[in-house]
């Protein structure tokens, strides 16, 4: 047998920053290799194709020289809330829980790396994947606008910047659910249901009672399109909408609120910070049971 060779070389433990970078790289590569990236690209190409192909059958694109590009962009941005929710579900919903439910934590946690580094690396990688997809979508809008109207509007950049913040907040909530659930499937389903049904239900109920729905994260998605409303809908709330009278007396009127930019930014930041903090605490404390 050869002479002992163990410990002949010494490796220096890298800094937390360097480990975060390593985790981000690997998680991003994983995100790129999953089929979900391809699916998202297909979705945005289909949505874009739909938005670009339908108006010519009904009189063409908006032709107002001033407002036309804004109205055109709104065709696209109306789909962004749903796109962001899907991104949060698929890039945040299973990001943390999978380490436990898929048993990959047995390989990664015994390494000399803090849970905070893993958490941040995963978060950055998920954000990068979402930025990539959202970026491609906005690029399609910008290129289409430039071709059709021979001009670009700066509000598209504002809308994109805000969409990124909104996406980050949604991702934060998805991370919180991911940190608290036992299985990957239940985390994905709950994230989806929360954004598409629970928030909408609460919003609908509050609207009936005339209560402002501002604290709800999904309500703040309105800002994304608001930028492209040209001018931004400043009134708050917007006019009441009568929904008809109920026979025998009484009536129902809905108050439609429009989110403001300042509120939108503040509330997205609140959701982002609180949900990420809670998600990190839960992820850090979670044990590898079973």
């Amino acid at each position, binding site marked *: 047998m050869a002479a002992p060779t163990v410990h002949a070389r010494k490796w220096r433990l890298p800094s937390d920053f360097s480990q975060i970078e390593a985790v981000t790289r690997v998680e991003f590569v994983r995100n790129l290799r999953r089929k979900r990236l391809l699916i998202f690209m297909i979705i945005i190409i289909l949505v874009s194709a739909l938005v670009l192909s339908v108006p010519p059958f009904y009189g063409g694109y908006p032709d107002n020289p001033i407002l036309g590009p804004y109205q055109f962009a709104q065709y696209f941005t109306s789909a962004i809330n749903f796109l962001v929710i899907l991104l949060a579900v698929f890039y945040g919903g299973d990001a943390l829980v999978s380490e436990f439910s898929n048993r990959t934590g047995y390989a990664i946690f015994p390494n*000399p790396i803090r849970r905070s580094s893993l958490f941040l690396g995963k978060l950055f990688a998920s954000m990068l994947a979402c930025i990539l997809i959202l970026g491609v979508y906005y690029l399609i809008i910008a290129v289409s606008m430039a071709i059709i109207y021979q001009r670009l509007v700066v509000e598209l950049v504002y809308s994109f910047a805000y969409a990124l913040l909104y996406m980050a907040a949604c991702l934060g909530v998805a991370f919180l659910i991911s940190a608290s659930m036992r299985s990957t499937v239940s985390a994905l389903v709950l994230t989806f249901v929360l954004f598409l049904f629970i928030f909408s239900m609460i919003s609908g109920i509050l609207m009936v009672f005339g209560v402002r729905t501002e604290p709800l994260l999904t309500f703040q998605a309105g800002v994304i399109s608001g930028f492209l409303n040209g001018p931004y809908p400043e009134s708050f709330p917007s006019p009441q909408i009568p929904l008809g009278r109920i026979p025998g007396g009484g009536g129902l009127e809905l108050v439609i609120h429009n989110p403001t930019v300042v509120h939108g930014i503040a509330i997205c930041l609140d959701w982002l910070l609180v949900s990420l903090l809670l998600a990190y605490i839960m992820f850090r404390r979670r044990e590898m049971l079973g």
Partner: protein
Amino acid sequence: MASSVEPLVIENLSKSYNGFKALDSLSLNVAPRSCVGFLGPNGAGKTTTIKILTSLLRASGGRAFLNGVDVTKDPKNALEKVGAVVETPEFYPELTPVETLSYFARLRGISPANAEARVAEVIEQVKMSEWKDRRIGKFSKGMKQRIAVAQALLHEPELLLLDEPTAGLDPRGMAEVRDIIKTLRLQGYTIFMSSHLLFEVQQVCDKAAIVNKGKLLIYDSVEDLSTRKHVMKLEIDLVNTIDTETYTKVCALDGVKGIQCPTASKMFIDFDGDTVARKSLLESLQRLGLQVYSFTDAGVALEDFYLDLIKESK
């Protein structure tokens, strides 16, 4: 402060799950360059101990030092020179073994230039070169276990924590992993290995710690544990068959405490005696007309001792 010389020092380690004590003030030290088998029945606390040592679980009480650093307080630095295989880990299915090990190399601080060579070395060591560029998603459990062993060796750790490292492997894979562990032992690695396979511990380790219900029952060299019961089990294979008369005569031989005959040409003799007495026994068997072609220690003395110990602790 525990000694920084000993790679593994466990002090009164406890773990409770909703009132159930999985570990009860466990204490033991592992000397450098030794190979310790951590034995116990299912639910004894073996995996819980290794999970605490690898920061997968939090201890309810006590401390555990890895190379002098308390893993319950500073897991990052404590795990720096530790390699571990816990249960049968899964790896990211989207990555290949080379990518996975390169990732772990980065987390360990191995420079990309060194990592390439080191990754190739460990992949070769666990005989996975043929699959090094295939995605892990389609690998069998045994192949994943080899990758797990490779990642544990990647940074040439001073201490290896192995939780049933041969679990899930086919017989050939088990033998190969055991051979790897034996080689590592000769190379100077300190190894702390849990197992419920006694013969595996007997084959690979020089010391054994036996636990049950979260408590350490005994911690001694495998050799001493094997001889504590004083009775060894000898496996004897015959060319001819044994009849009732010969059987009675064998029972009456010096040192023979009992005989089991699973077939007419095979005997297991519980024997109390040293090597000279064993030689005499062999001669006596031949004088009785038994044509012995194999006369070996069945290696189950430790098993008998272990079973007695577990029984007593219940």
